[in-house]
């Protein structure tokens, strides 16, 4: 199997693992008794909310920062060109 197909399969597997793990963690673990053996594999339940919220904040921050850099650069270029045209 070529490395491309292997990479595709890896992505498929990763998405399945993440989905199953998160579903059990966020939706099913509240129904398990406190001393269930399965709960040892999951961190505390509030992190099931905090981690996605942190990820969204970081993503929006990075995208906003990138957009800001582009806008400032464009504004500087336009102001520079405008000044030349006036002179």
């Amino acid at each position, binding site marked *: 199997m070529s490395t491309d197909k292997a990479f595709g399969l890896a992505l*498929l597997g990763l998405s399945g693992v993440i989905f199953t793990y998160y579903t059990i963690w966020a939706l099913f673990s509240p129904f398990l008794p406190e001393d269930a053996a399965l709960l040892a594999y999951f961190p505390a339940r509030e992190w099931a909310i905090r981690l996605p919220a942190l990820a969204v904040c970081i993503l929006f921050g990075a995208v906003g920062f990138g957009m800001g850099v582009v806008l400032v650069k464009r504004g500087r270029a336009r102001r520079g060109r405008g000044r030349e045209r006036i002179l």
Partner: protein
Amino acid sequence: MTRFNRLLTYFFSATALWTLFYFDFLPLPLDDDVKYYFLQVLPFWLLISFGCWCLWQLGMGVYSFGECEQDYRDLLLEIKMAKDDLRTKGISV
């Protein structure tokens, strides 16, 4: 109706329904703390599920990509021929 409009309609309908359940305008046959826990977890779970679905689509696309070995070799040969042709005409490639 475009696909985007349909998506927006579903999204805002779901949000309205969620809001109705959250503020007790529509009853939900669950205990209070269970109900609020699920209503609060649901947006984050949907976000993670959407991310996983996107990963799945990417993986499926990469996995089932139709490789055309012969066309790849033909294309490389054509590129080489074009470069040689341009070099004879004096253009540096």
